[in-house]
C-alpha cells in the first residue's frame, strides 16, 4: 500500500470512528469517561486514606467502629466514592471532552503514582 492509500485508509478509519458517535454510543462513552475520572480519583483517595489511617490512630479506630474492621470500612468507602463520584460526573457531563486518550493517561498515571507511593510508605514508615 503506497503512502496515499495509507492516508486514505486512516482517514476512513477516523470517519468510521466518528460515525459511531450515535446517541446510545455517545451516552455510553460519556458514562465511561465520568467513571474513568472517578476511578482515577478513587485510586488516589484509597492511598491517601491508607496514609492518614496509618498515621492517625483515632481515624483507624473510627473506621473500625463503623463496620467492625478498618479494612472493611476502607474498601466500602472506596467503592461508594467510586460510584457516587461517577454518578456525579455523569450527571454534570464531566469530563466535557468525553472518553479520550487523556482519560486513560490520567487513570494510568494515578495507578502508577498511587501504587508506588503505597509501597514507599510502608517501606519507610
Amino acid at each position, binding site marked *: 500500500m503506497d503512502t496515499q492509500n495509507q492516508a486514505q485508509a486512516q482517514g476512513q478509519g477516523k470517519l468510521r470512528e466518528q460515525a*459511531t458517535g450515535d446517541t446510545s*454510543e455517545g451516552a455510553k*462513552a460519556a458514562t465511561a469517561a465520568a467513571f*474513568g475520572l472517578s476511578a482515577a480519583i478513587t485510586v488516589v483517595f484509597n492511598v491517601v486514606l491508607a496514609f492518614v489511617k496509618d498515621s492517625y490512630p483515632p481515624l483507624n479506630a473510627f473506621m473500625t467502629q463503623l463496620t467492625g474492621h478498618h479494612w*472493611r470500612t476502607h474498601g466500602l468507602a472506596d467503592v461508594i466514592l467510586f460510584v457516587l463520584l461517577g454518578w456525579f460526573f455523569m450527571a454534570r457531563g464531566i469530563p466535557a471532552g468525553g472518553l*479520550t*486518550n487523556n482519560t486513560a493517561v490520567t*487513570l494510568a498515571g494515578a495507578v502508577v503514582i498511587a501504587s508506588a507511593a*503505597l*509501597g514507599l510508605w510502608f517501606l519507610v514508615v
Partner: protein
Amino acid sequence: MPMKDVILFLHPTFGVLGLVAAVWVFVETLNSTDANQKRIWLASLAVAGLFALTWFFAERYYTVYYHAGDQQIIQNGPVPWAHSFFMETKEHLFFIPLILAFYLPFVTRLRLSVNKPARTMVLVLAAFITLNGLAIEGAGAIINWGAKTTLAQTVQMAPAASQTKEVQ
C-alpha cells in the same frame, strides 16, 4: 479441612482467575472486532465478578482469621517485614485493581473495534489489573513464607519428643 483454610485458599484462587480473565480481555481487545465484542464484554464481567469474590473471601480471612493468629506468628518470627511491608502494602494495593475491575465493564460495552480511546482504556485497565494482581499474589506468597519460617524455627527450637521422654 477447616473453613479457615478453605477461605485462605479460595481468595487467591479467585484472584488468579480474575487476573487470567484480565489477560483474556487484553488479548481479545488487541484483536477487537464486532465479532468478539460480546466476548470481551462477558470476559470483563468475569473480571469484575471474580475480583468481587476475591474481595469477599479476602475480607472474611483478613478481618476474622489473619489478625487472630497469623499476624502475631509473622511479627514474632525472623521476617516481621513480611507483615509490616508486604501485608500492609498488599491489603491496600488490592483496592486499586478492585476499582479498575469494577470500572472495566463500563468501557467494554463500547464498540472497541471502532473507538480507539475506549480500546486504549481497556488495554490500560487490563494491563494494570494483571500487573497489580501479580504483585499481590507475589506478596501473598512472601506473607505465607513469613509464617512458615517462624513455625519452622519454633519446631527446630522445641526439644524432640524422644528427648522429652528421656528427661522424664
